[in-house]
């Protein structure tokens, strides 16, 4: 009646049936993370594979739990929202999501994320893959990058979306979609002006750089057309300007443009004009001027106040000083060739007054040149002083937030290989060499603690060069249990901490107390957090 096989087959079949009827949960994709970002006291980890962000709180008592925040589909890029001063810091992260081509409700977007979660989400009309912020963090332009290989059938490389980050999303007015007119070439980059006074109103301009065309866009009145200015006539075989750099003179409302392949500086003067009852017309007009520099212009910097406004240009073996009003050019022969300019306010070994001075340098060489800019048009190369050091790959300006004018004026030069770094005192023009056992790939300046953090990738050590006292430069280091991947500073927070991330699919990071530099070696106060990327 009942065979043994039947007895055994019944529960097995039932069990199989039960399994088939059961529900299955939401499947997760393998995680892939964007580089982590730091808010004032939270670390942000963005999981591209699963459209989510993890917010790790580092403000108080540490716990290995991160708040998980859902993000729009396919986050591809994230940036810390900029600010000009810590007091104005909105403490937000901007995340660009590409959306899903196959899901109509999942459109490309910009998400504003703060430590509470998603603040705003701006829907975009196209799957952009690049974004540029104004230095004050108010405006964001989202665009196609030069290397975009969008999987869309059609897309317009001149299309941009402009977002006012101080305003809530609005389908009609924020963001604003624009197509920047050019002359057959896509935009190369976008630069934002500082606030300029135009017709009694504070405005910010977006300067869109093409290879030899520039477009000016009034960000306050995005309903008005942009100005498109051709800097050089396009002709077959004519070399391109290759616009690279833009400087703004916010006192004179001038825009200075430099191209890597042009010996000239282009100056655009913004002048007001009367517009009666024409809200869609610009109330200013640009005029173009051209300054002959000569040679290959590598870098430029503006200094001095009117009428002493000058443009300093690094042109290889010479430095050019251009009078912004008279356009008079003074060429200063340099002891060594320089391609970069770093302006600083400081003293010199000979003159104990704070003035605008310049450090001219060229990466990959073993010299720097100090240029005293006072009376340089008269004294010329007598104002130049050469300092020989080891060959360097990076120059990292150190601008402490504490100490003001009395704070030490220093830069760090990172050397190749095991040569470590050199700390150059810009006032005394002396060099302190800090040797290293490893190649210091990058230093992270810490304005709050007035030093430089050094965390070579895949080494178990983190170092800190305390620069608060130029007479006592004492590098400190701490050995961690795991190799370093990323370093995030939270030294602007009330509870100063440093987060060192390690390689772990579950999320692993060591938190170092950094109230004082001496805290570093106290490992009893350090803690490793593990598993915070596992989610709910």
């Amino acid at each position, binding site marked *: 009646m009942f065979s043994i096989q039947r007895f055994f087959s019944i529960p097995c079949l039932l069990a199989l049936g039960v399994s088939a009827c059961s529900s299955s949960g939401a*499947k997760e994709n393998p995680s892939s993370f964007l580089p982590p970002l730091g808010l004032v006291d939270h670390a942000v980890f963005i999981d591209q594979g699963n459209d989510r962000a993890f917010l790790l709180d580092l403000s108080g008592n540490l716990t290995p739990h991160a708040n998980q925040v859902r993000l729009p589909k396919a986050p591809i890029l994230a940036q810390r929202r900029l600010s000009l001063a810590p007091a104005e810091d909105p403490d937000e992260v901007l995340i660009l999501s590409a959306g899903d081509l196959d899901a109509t409700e999942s459109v490309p977007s910009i998400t504003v994320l703060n430590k509470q979660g998603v603040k705003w989400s701006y829907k975009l009309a196209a799957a952009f893959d690049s974004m540029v912020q104004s230095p004050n963090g108010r405006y964001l332009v989202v665009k196609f990058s030069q290397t975009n290989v969008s999987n869309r059938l059609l897309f317009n490389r001149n299309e941009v979306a402009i977002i006012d980050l101080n305003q809530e999303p609005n389908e009609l007015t924020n963001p604003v979609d624009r197509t920047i007119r050019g002359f057959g070439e896509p935009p190369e980059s976008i630069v934002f002006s500082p606030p300029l006074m135009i017709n009694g109103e504070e405005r910010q301009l977006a300067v869109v750089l093409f290879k030899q065309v520039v477009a000016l866009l009034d960000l306050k009145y995005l309903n008005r057309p942009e100005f498109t200015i051709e800097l050089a006539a396009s002709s077959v075989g004519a070399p391109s300007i290759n616009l690279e750099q833009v400087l703004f003179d916010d006192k004179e409302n001038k825009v200075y443009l430099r191209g890597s392949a042009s010996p000239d500086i282009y100056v655009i003067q913004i002048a007001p004009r009367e517009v009666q009852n024409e809200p869609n017309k610009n109330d200013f007009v640009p005029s173009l001027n051209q300054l002959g520099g000569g040679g290959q212009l590598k870098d430029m910097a503006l200094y001095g106040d009117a009428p002493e406004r000058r443009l300093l240009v690094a042109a290889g073996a010479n430095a050019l000083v251009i009078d912004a009003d008279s356009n008079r050019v003074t060429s200063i022969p340099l002891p060594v060739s320089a391609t970069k300019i770093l302006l600083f306010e400081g003293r010199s070994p000979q003159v104990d007054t704070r003035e605008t001075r310049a450090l001219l340098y060229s990466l990959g060489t073993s010299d720097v040149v100090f240029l005293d800019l006072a009376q340089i048009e008269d004294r010329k190369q007598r104002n130049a002083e050469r300092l020989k050091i080891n060959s360097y790959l990076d120059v990292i300006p150190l601008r402490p937030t504490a100490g003001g004018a009395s704070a030490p004026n220093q830069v760090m030069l990172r050397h190749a290989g095991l040569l470590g770094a050199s700390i150059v005192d810009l006032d005394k023009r002396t060099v302190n060499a800090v040797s290293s056992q490893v190649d210091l790939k990058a230093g992270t300046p810490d304005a709050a603690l007035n030093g430089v953090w050094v965390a070579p990738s895949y080494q178990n050590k983190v170092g800190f060069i305390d620069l608060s006292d130029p007479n006592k430069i004492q590098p400190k280091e701490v050995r961690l249990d795991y190799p370093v991947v990323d370093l995030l500073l939270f030294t602007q927070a009330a509870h100063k901490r440093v987060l060192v991330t390690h390689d772990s699919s579950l999320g692993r990071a060591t938190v170092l107390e950094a109230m004082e530099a001496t805290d570093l070696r106290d490992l009893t106060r350090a803690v490793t*957090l*593990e598993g915070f990327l*596992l989610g709910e």
Partner: protein
Amino acid sequence: MSMKFEISSALFLAVFAFSEASGAQTAPRAEPPEPSVVLTDEVPAAVAPPVVAAPASPASATPVPAEGAATTAAALPNDPPDVLAPTSEAPKAASPPLSAPRVIALNEAPSKGFDAEAPAKSKNPRMISVFKGAVRTSFDVNTVWDLDDRYQLFDSSDVNVRMGVSVGYDLLSFDGGWVVAPELGWSHESASGGPSAPQLSKKELMGDHFFGAFRARHTIASWLEGFGRLQGGMAWTRVDLASSGASVDQYSTSNKAPEFQLGAGVVVRTPDAERAPPGESLALGFTLEAGYQVAPALKLKLDRAATDGQRISVLTSDLGELSRSGPSLRLGIFTRF
């Protein structure tokens, strides 16, 4: 057989105290003291007539000549079979040794060799009537639905299947076809590789469940029984996790917790099993039981398996609590003899 008898004796002693109390409450004070008999290996308790079990019934007071009684008399050659009668004049020689168990309840079910219509079955039975002695062994598939989303860490479905074995013993037989059987058992669960948390290369949940249970079953037909079952026990659970990527870290958590299960179901068996005395027949069948398991939640923590050389203290994430309560479905294939 002798081993089984020893188990029976031990269980019998446990029942004895309860039965004494029960008898004291139900029997009139005027009743004479209960006579005792020696229960031997050759005489199953089930065949003794229910003379004490139903003192209020005149019919049941009549001694029944039976093979079992004869065998009992054989153990006490000077005593006639009617020594089991409820009389205050019972000879002292009929008293068993002090160590011998006393029969308080007798089997209402006729054994092989008995006439099924014989008056051995009480017409007005007591609540507790028999110490029966059939042993049941079962292979069980216990399915518990883990409805907690965290179970997706270990399995793509909600179903947690536990394989195991159990042994039961028909200890008490209630009049009207009810039998109470204690059970002991073990089951094992294993789940790994759910869709949740793909950054873990190893996600394994293993558990061993040791339990005791009481099953009360009732014969509905010769091949069908209904039953209710209460189970309690301990679960030893172990969770092994490992990260993925270049550096693989192992995490292991062990947990020990009580768990309870309440269920009801049916037994389908070969029809003539109850007709044979224990040990002399073999019944096969299967059980199907639906129920609900109640157990404390399992804490999921990333406890490092090894922390050699760790200089900085580690705070590992708490993955939350995995609920272990949920509906269950138990399927068993058993033999009863």
